[in-house]
């Protein structure tokens, strides 16, 4: 049942129109694909029901791309809707993820609050990436960090997700951060 290939994923979250799909497209070796998850009551976590109206059946679309990092290693990037009401879906999506990128548009900072709240509470490593739109005022990463109350140990980067190199930089920063967060190997595992 084991196989010769490993796959993993990074989740890209953020408000509407913040550039999630653009980020995925800039590095993916395939045009981004879209998948749908149908969320019904039965698929909601027992303790999530308070956060979701009763008897929901919602279709949530996610887009994703793929990067072959090695012949036997594939990285998937999942762009996911960033509203609080999709929290229940993130729980399932983030299982096994390397970490998450929370994309921020400085003109609409509040759109990133649900994603920040979620990932701070989840224990999943994440970085904050400020997508710099041409017509948006420019702020330093530190100014954004202060405004968003992002703890010091979490990287905040400025980026332009239309640029492949910029996206790679963000992903690299995330994995470096995830490694720093990962506890050293437990002795019994060696």
């Amino acid at each position: 049942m084991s196989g010769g290939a490993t796959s993993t994923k990074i989740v890209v979250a953020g408000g509407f129109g913040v550039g999630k799909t653009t980020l995925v497209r800039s590095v993916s070796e395939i045009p981004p694909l879209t998948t749908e998850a149908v969320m019904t009551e039965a698929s909601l976590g027992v303790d999530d029901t308070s956060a979701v109206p009763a008897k929901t059946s919602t279709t949530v679309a996610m887009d994703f791309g793929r990067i072959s990092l090695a012949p036997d290693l594939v990285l998937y990037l999942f762009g996911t809707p960033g509203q609080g009401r999709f929290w229940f879906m993130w729980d399932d999506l983030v299982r096994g993820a390397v970490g998450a990128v929370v994309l921020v548009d400085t003109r609409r900072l509040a759109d990133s609050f649900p994603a920040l709240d979620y990932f701070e509470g989840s224990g999943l490593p994440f970085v904050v990436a400020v997508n710099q739109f041409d017509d948006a005022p420019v702020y330093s990463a530190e100014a954004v960090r202060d405004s968003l109350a992002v703890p010091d140990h979490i990287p905040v980067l400025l980026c332009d997700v239309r640029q492949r190199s910029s996206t790679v930089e963000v992903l690299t920063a995330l994995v470096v951060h995830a490694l720093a967060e990962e506890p050293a190997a437990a002795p019994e595992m060696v």
Partner: protein
Amino acid sequence: MPGTTSGSSSHSSNSSNSSGGSGSRTGAGAGPLQGGPVRGRRSDTVRPGQGRSSRVRPYAITRGRTRFGRVLLVETLVSALNRPADPADRSLPELTAICDVCRGQMRSIAEISALLRIPLGVVKVLVSDLADQGRIRVHGADSVDGAELDGGDEVPGASKRDLLERVLGGLRKL
């Protein structure tokens, strides 16, 4: 059984981050962006991610998990094996379609869902059936019997670091 570390512990071991002591820094720098909202650090904020490790979600135990214990995540890779279809499955053309799209190549659960336009949850169930029938191979890390039964599909300890190192190496070569 060597692998006593489960995925759930990797969550709790990181959960101290959010309470880690940087709270005093708020407002020390440039302050709120011009005219923008300020996100406070409210300790009473409901954080849905918390307590996840202690959660028991029935669907996570049965659905999306093959009979032999593999968890099927959106990124899990599968490929078709040359095993004839069970005649009883003729009524489910989706099963054949799934085998067709991952014959000769590995596909993730998400790719199958996107290519065949079948919702993710349904793909997981169908792939699970196909794996049980020996028509599909599920790639990825070995499941240690029992180690995953508490929901720990995540790679524990040393192999998680290994994986991260490999991902980092791959990204740096892009």
